């Protein structure tokens, strides 16, 4: 028997000090907030039932995100306009739901994400470094110590910068595909020849997740 499905997507932002809450802990925070808001989540069947939820690709610890999402299923139709306010009531400062919307079962796949990095340094140097990087045919980089090597030139879909109120904002789109993903921090460290500590101090914000059909 085909039962009616109720699938929703929460679109939220994560800003300020809560950017230091890990993806795993954030998941728990959302589960509690949904339950406390009285939303009846649908559970998986079986010996060890779990609520049916899924998250967007994890945000690295310390990153902000302004357009993050989480999908969940409920056992009944959700009145999602008031649900926004009531979920927000049960979230810590810095995490805010901006919208809840209905989604189809076969939602499109996340292909890439776009980030903005608040840079410190000289505009000229940054411009040169970007130009050099973009001219490369390939650029093999170890994703982390002991990790695998990735051609990060292929991972970077776009890379540019703007000056805004005296700040230099780096704008980069990075692939989320298997074997192409690179942490934007690692990339900045490499392209601009920064120290690990300096790179950790940068505030990086994920602006959007770009979806589409996967090209096979």
């Amino acid at each position, binding site marked *: 028997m085909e039962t009616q499905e109720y699938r929703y997507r929460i679109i939220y932002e994560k800003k300020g*000090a809560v950017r230091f*809450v*890990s993806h795993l*802990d954030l998941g728990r*925070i959302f589960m509690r907030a949904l339950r406390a808001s009285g939303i009846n989540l649908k559970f998986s069947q079986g010996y060890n039932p779990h609520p049916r939820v899924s998250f967007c690709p994890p945000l690295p610890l310390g990153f902000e995100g302004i357009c993050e999402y989480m999908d969940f299923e409920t056992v009944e139709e959700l009145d999602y306009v008031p649900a926004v306010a009531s979920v927000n009531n049960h979230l*810590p400062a*810095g995490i805010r739901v901006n919208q809840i919307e209905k989604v189809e079962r076969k939602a499109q796949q996340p292909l890439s994400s776009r980030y903005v990095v608040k840079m410190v340094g000289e505009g000229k140097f940054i411009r040169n470094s970007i130009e050099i990087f973009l001219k490369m045919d390939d650029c093999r980089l170890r994703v982390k110590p002991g990790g695998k090597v990735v051609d990060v030139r292929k991972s970077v879909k776009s890379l540019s910068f703007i000056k805004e109120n005296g700040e230099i904002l780096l704008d980069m789109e990075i692939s989320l595909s298997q074997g192409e993903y690179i942490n934007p921090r690692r990339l900045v460290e490499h392209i601009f020849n920064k120290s690990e500590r300096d790179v950790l*101090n940068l505030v990086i914000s994920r602006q959007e997740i770009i979806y589409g059909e996967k090209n096979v």
Partner: protein
Amino acid sequence: MPTCFDLIERSILPHVKKPARYIGGEINASKKGFSPDRVNICLAFPDIYEIGMSHLGLKILYNIINDKDCFSVERVFCPWTDMEKELRDNSIPLFSLENKVRLKDFDVIGFSLQYELCMSNVLTMLDLAGIPFKSEDRDSEFPLVIAGGSSVCQPEPFVKFFDVIVLGDGEHVILEFLEWVKRERKLLKEDKVKALEKLASEIESAYVPSLAKPPRQVRRRKLRVLESYSCDEKLIVPHIQSVHNRVVIEIMRGCSRGCRFCQPGMISRPVVEKPAKGIIAEAVRKIEDTGFEEVSLLSLSAGDYSGIKELLGDLVSVFDKKSISVGLPSLRADTFCIDLASFVRKVRKTGITFAPEAGNERLRKIINKDLTDREIIEAAGYAFSKGWNLIKLYFMVGLPRETDEDVLSIGSLIEKIIKVAKQNKKGRMSVNVTISNFVPKAHTPFQWENMNSIDELRRKHRLIRNSVRCKNLKISCHDPEMSYLESVFARGGRSLADVILKAWEKGARFDQWNDIFDFGIWKSSFDETGIDMSSLSCKPGDKLPWSHIDYGVKQGFLITERQKALKGEMTPDCRISKECTGCGACD
């Protein structure tokens, strides 16, 4: 004055492990701003955030203080070693989680002391806050540094670091104390010594160690009624997974079983129970407010709560349909309790814990643990037949009058349990055994007993490990060096303050953490201070360092209990036998 949290967020938090420990802003955390018009207290827990946020006492005090408009409470935990280094390297003082205020700017810093080996962390926190360690070195410019919690029942080793020590249940006395601070602000600024003298005479259970005249008997405070607090009570929901990731509700305080080694059982008499109606309402309210998916009932011995069966029945019927589970720790090894446990855990029967403590009945009589081998084996078989596949067993070595035969009997009891497990359980099953080391504690009948040496404890651990082997069995033993140090602080006097200071200077941190604890540091600190660790034991007739600290149970009772122990005589639980044992706690 707020510290520059922007700077901390930008250039310190990215470099430490689990930075969410230091950001505050959790759901239900206090939103009162910092105002000098209120009495501001910072509750300080000398361990990391995840541990401290699981501690019930902290939650209780946080709520009752914040309930009052004229007081404001914030929290601080001990920074992990990486954060300590970052704060030092950047000259940033330790700050509170709520308003990111320097600890120095509070009126009161209230430490919660839950175990003997937390003092190095207390010193780390004071040092990072720029507050001198010793009470005598702090003038009225500094906050009052006070302490409470179960460890303060024998406070002498660390009294020099505190201005006031609050004995017993803190719920009422903390409010009286803060009222007093509010009233005596002027005097506190003008003359701290005089103010503290006044405090000691006005507030019962406030122990002021620095008084010129040696302190009179100081009596602990004891709640006679255990209630659920007001409906405004809000549970802070930690950002990061804490040790107890659930709603915890205290259903009963104290235990009257009377195990002779057990300090919590002795110092929290008489037993008080929270009415069932209040428990259910509190559970529903907190689950709805926080969104947790488990509620756990806390007490030293949950099976002894009168009407526990009915209470669980009611809770399960309220929560079952909401997929919220009910947890029940600390059960006795009997079929009644296993029935309770299987009732609340219909699925996911992860593990059940029994504490036989000793390997045979002779020794169990000495420690007054009313359990026969047969009962334990039956209970284990019953638990496996009910569907559990993991049993955890707690034993102790180094008990008074213990022989090698007694130690070996732990192994044979484990063997019998494994056998009965195999008979009753098809498929995967395992037995996890934890061996802890007996530490003689103040206010117990065993306070005059000897502590085994480190080598002796190691030898006993080996005896057990060699006596029983099975692929389904895991045995872990508490670190004998850590237990030994614990025993020194459990019975030592004021001279230990200098040892603590020295050890801290040499780098002692997080001493209750196995992977960090460094006994070498402590050993050399004792050597350099000229104190012999083994000299700090007690014999009957000795003047005990804590003789002026009164936790209800009378000295005469402890002596009688000790004599009975040596004869292998038991003392029944007065709540079951309805006969007074004369311990004196109800007087």
